[in-house]
């Protein structure tokens, strides 16, 4: 299922922050983790992750550091800062609130089942 672009954009920062809160990581592994967490449903365009990481770094929520991969190649690892953890807690609250509000209303209405949606073209 394709997820709305705005929703992907809005969820990118909290997802990245949360994954980094689990432990330091790097671009490719972060994407793998996103895919794992969403059961493969959430597919980002790989290249788009990096501007997000750079933005978070500029805002001081994460910090990048060049290290080496297992094969000895240069690799940039990211690490969440105290400020980033604060931001994550705040985002977590906001998402919970949105989620709770939506959860309250779902049972009150009847929605067409998923098969009624027209199949959307999927990414590569």
């Amino acid at each position, binding site marked *: 299922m394709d997820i709305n672009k705005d929703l992907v954009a809005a969820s990118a920062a909290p997802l990245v922050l949360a994954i980094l809160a689990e432990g330091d990581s790097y671009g490719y592994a972060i994407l793998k983790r996103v895919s794992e967490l969403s059961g493969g449903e959430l597919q980002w365009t*790989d290249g*788009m992750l*990096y501007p997000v990481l*750079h933005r978070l770094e500029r805002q001081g929520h994460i910090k990048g550091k060049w290290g080496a991969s297992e094969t000895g*190649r*240069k690799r940039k690892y990211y690490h969440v800062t105290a400020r980033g953890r604060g931001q994550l807690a705040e985002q977590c609250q906001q998402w919970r609130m949105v989620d709770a509000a939506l959860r309250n209303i779902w049972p009150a209405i009847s929605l067409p089942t998923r098969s009624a949606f027209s199949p959307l073209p999927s990414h590569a």
Partner: protein
Amino acid sequence: MLKPTTEAGSSDSLEGQIEQWRIYLRRRQAIVPVDVEELEDHLRGEVAALRGAGLSEDEAFLVAVKRMGALDAISNEFAREHSERLWKQLVIASTDTAQPVDKVRTETIIVFALAMVAALAVKVPELFGLEWAARDMPFYMRNFSLFVFPLLTGYFVWKRRLSKRTWAWLALAFAAAVVLAKVYTIETRSDTETLTALHLPIALWLPVGIAYAGGRWGESAGRMDFVRFSGELFIYYALIALGGGVLIAFTMGMFKAIAIDAEPVVQDWLLPCGMLGAVIVGSWLVEAKQSVIENMAPVLTRLFTPLFALTLVAFLGTMVWTGRGIDIERNALIAFDLLLVLVLGLLLYSISARDPQARPGAFDLLLVLLLVSALVADAFALAAIGARISEFGFTPNRVAALGENVVLLGNLGWSTVLYVRFLRGRGPFASLERWQTAYLPAYSVWAAIVVVGFPPVFGFD
């Protein structure tokens, strides 16, 4: 879109393909080399995973590139996040791996040391009883190029690793200038003194140019680079001077607020030391930024060539229409020399930025119009002066101005011929460029004649 397997033939291996992809990525202004490295690490991770899943190298690479996303979209995202990258920034300490860091650092240290030496050199005469004040100002005016040009030359000698022989000749030129300055006892506030002050820098700019060109002085391209350098240095110097003016105003104002007069310090130290140090620092900035930021001199040339052409045509038109002759007073010749210098500058910097292969265009016509009208105006002035030169007498100023006029007229006259030939398809543009660069030493040679020959001829008066 991305075509990873074009261009070079070595692209069938994975490494070759990744190299191609990297080159392609680097062309994007918003994506800098470290981003490329980060993205490359990602691409390799993806390729390895796909290979593990049983894909062939080629397939894995293609899928990985596809998953990376459309390059335009990624580049736009990068640009949005790093908008400053779309403005070419001057980074002195290059993060580029092409230039070793310690070389950049050594150069920075040398430049600032030279600037300090230049700044202090101007204070040395005070040890011998001279004063940076109205009384000895003529001495400083006459010799300021001797304080800083040798150091600037030294910088280029170091940077271009010039041979000992060139080095020795350049040192000899400056030594001769110093000896001359010492031997000639020119009378204060005389004509020849003013002439020396004006001409010595022009004469000594030649050794600076030879050092700058670093063995390429014999080539037209090497000299043209020096022309570009000179123009940019002039603009940088003007900008630094503006900044310096603001600094001085603030220094004076702030110390005034606590009832301390900063003027002696500003007057004796900040101003003279800054004036000379800025020549070195400005040159270094021009060197550092030459490939980073668009050259300003050609931009200004583009802007002002039409305006000056219009002014000159209007001037000539009015003169003919009203029948007024040029009123030749004492300084008219100097004014016309300056006009020719200006036209020459416009021509030179238009040439310096022009693609020699480009076909003649409207701007070329405009330049020819500018040249012809300047020549006509100058011819009128020369005719008027020639008629009355015996009446005015041959003072050093007048002879120098006349000589300059001849030197400039010679250049512009032949330039016009070459330009017209080019416009009519009878000659290449390169011949105009060659003429200009071949002519460069003529200015310095004439200036040297004025400096060396005029004082004795006119009795140091």
